[in-house]
């Protein structure tokens, strides 16, 4: 049982929905980023997604692209991201951390080395956008073996025939991408998303969390009403990009988490 499984058991016992936040590790710099991460649980975040900076984030819109560029410019690397996680773990041993990014930096480090380090740092799960089920032997299976959850994205183009393939080696939760598109673009419509979540839940017992296009407390609440939880990324990252103080970023996160938790 990973911290992710434990968290969902706890939420479900309390009858609560999960609020998941995404920020880019090292944005705008290591210290600020660490301060934000440390404040997230207090702002109502149940699961922390940390973006791995990459030069070519093909599934991300301008907001997260720029966040990655800021982090890289400030010297962020995969190893530094793991240091950030380890630092966070010194004071928080329960809030799950999921790394989200692209495969090349992990492949470059070597899958086994990376998994060992990630595990030691206190990482609980991975979302690697450019590793579909067809490439499971690359990282998904070794990660599960190493005791990390491998969280898969399901999308509006994942039809019923393909869904079992996508769900097969998924663990922790299923991340439903509410739109065909990149992060920070179109807005999710809870009317479209409801039936899709039901379609996925018919085929799995895992929690289904919805992300992409959720950017206000109202949306957060609306989507939490039809899924097991919501992810907000670009809207938070945009504030960090504007150089807002840590406290202000966390206040905004609090409004989003209140939205999700008011269900």
């Amino acid at each position, binding site marked *: 049982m990973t911290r992710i499984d434990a968290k969902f058991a706890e939420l479900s016992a309390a009858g609560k929905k999960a609020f998941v936040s995404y920020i880019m590790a090292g944005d705008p710099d290591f210290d600020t980023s660490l301060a934000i991460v440390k404040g997230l649980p207090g702002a109502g975040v149940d699961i922390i997604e940390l973006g791995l900076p990459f030069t070519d984030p*093909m599934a991300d819109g301008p907001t997260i692209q720029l966040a990655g560029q800021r982090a890289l410019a400030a010297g962020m690397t995969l190893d530094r991201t793991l240091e950030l996680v380890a630092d966070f773990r010194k004071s928080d041993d329960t809030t799950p951390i999921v790394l989200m990014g692209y495969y090349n930096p*992990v492949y470059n480090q070597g899958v086994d080395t990376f998994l060992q380090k990630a595990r030691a740092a206190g990482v609980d799960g991975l979302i690697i956008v450019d590793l*579909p089920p067809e490439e499971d032997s690359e990282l998904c299976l070794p990660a599960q073996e190493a005791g990390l959850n491998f969280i898969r994205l399901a999308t509006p183009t994942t039809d019923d025939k393909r869904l079992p393939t996508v769900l097969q080696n998924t663990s922790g939760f299923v991340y439903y991408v509410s739109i*065909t598109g990149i992060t920070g673009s179109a807005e999710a419509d809870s009317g479209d998303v409801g039936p899709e979540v039901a379609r996925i839940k018919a085929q799995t017992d895992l929690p289904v969390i919805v992300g992409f296009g959720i950017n206000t407390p109202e949306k957060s609440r609306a989507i939490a009403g039809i899924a097991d939880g919501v992810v907000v990324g670009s809207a938070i990252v945009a504030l960090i990009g504007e150089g807002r103080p840590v406290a202000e970023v966390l206040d905004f996160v609090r409004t989003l988490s209140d939205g999700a938790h008011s269900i």
Partner: protein
Amino acid sequence: MNDLFNSFMSGPDESGRFGIFGGRFVSETLMPLILSLEEEYEKAKTDQSFWDQMDDLWKNYVGRPSPLYHAERLTQHLGGAKIYLKRDELNHTGAHKINNVLGQIILAMRMGKTRIIAETGAGQHGVATATVCAKFGLKCIVYMGAHDVQRQAPNVFRMRLLGAEVIPVTSGRGTLKDAMNDALRDWVTNVRDTFYCIGTVAGPHPYPAMVRDFQSIIGKEAKVQMMEAEGRLPDTLIAAIGGGSNAMGLFFPFLDDKDVNIIGVEAGGKGVNAKMEHCASLTGGRPGVLHGNRTYLLQDDDGQILEGYSISAGLDYPGIGPEHSWLHEVGRAKYVSITDMEALEAFQLSCELEGIIPALEPSHALAHVMKIAPELPADHLICMNMCGRGDKDIFTVAKHLGFDMSDTEGRVAG
């Protein structure tokens, strides 16, 4: 007879791999589409009506077969090997790119797609895509790095004349890699009606194999033409490599002819050294994953992709098609690099001796011919892919040679 088990022509396997290279490293949103493209392509491959349509267009619209031309004065000047040029610069739109575009656009129409997107570096693939879309009345959007929009201005205007929308990409350094990122982002967003027409042997499976198959018309023709001219196969094949499509197209039909030497020429920029001011992925990179496939990439210690540099917009890409990475590792082909300066010299030599203004991309191939031909015997046959004409590059070359194009007297500046 080819021995299937020892053949170099049997790849990729069913997961899209050439050895460890290739694959399908894309987001889930695109995965169903890529699988249906593969299915459609597999059907088309064995459908005679598909190839009949291709043959008709290649002949009557593109002007194929392109000549295999004995470059007599170049041969004399270099004083060694006998040099043949495969004249794909004579194709409609001025490069090999259209060979592949026709195939993909016909597939797109068979799949019922109405909106075509493409990335382009030098603008040749963009022009070819815009051209074929105009011919078939399809909507066309071309992503082009902002830096390339500047250095390839004539092609930008051409695309617009042909009715395409050209979107300058400002992320990164504004070159081919960044254009490809934005094309992929567009595709993820508009996946239901959009077909992504990739311009080289890269991207997720089945693109590398499919583009190779369409470009293989170059090598198939060259083989027949060389037999007619010389009664035997060439000794050495040489082609320039950006992503590697003109090279794969020439090389592929010869892969199992073990006596044929195969040489790919990468862009050495300002020199292949630690400063990474080049685009020689095989000579200066290592395996990684980008744009849907595993291949050799220019990257730093953290696995971040480096920008690369070349005078030639068409070679300015930090990766290379996965099949080349495999051919490199198994040793079937050899890969070398040529600097900007060497390419510029070859560019001028081709103009002066053969009356052919080459694109900067094949100028790299020619520069390598200039290096090796003098040392080879007169009966050594070289076949080089003259894959594009240089009209698009005259502004860049003028700048490097200090020629002021706005000076109507045509004086050399400085």
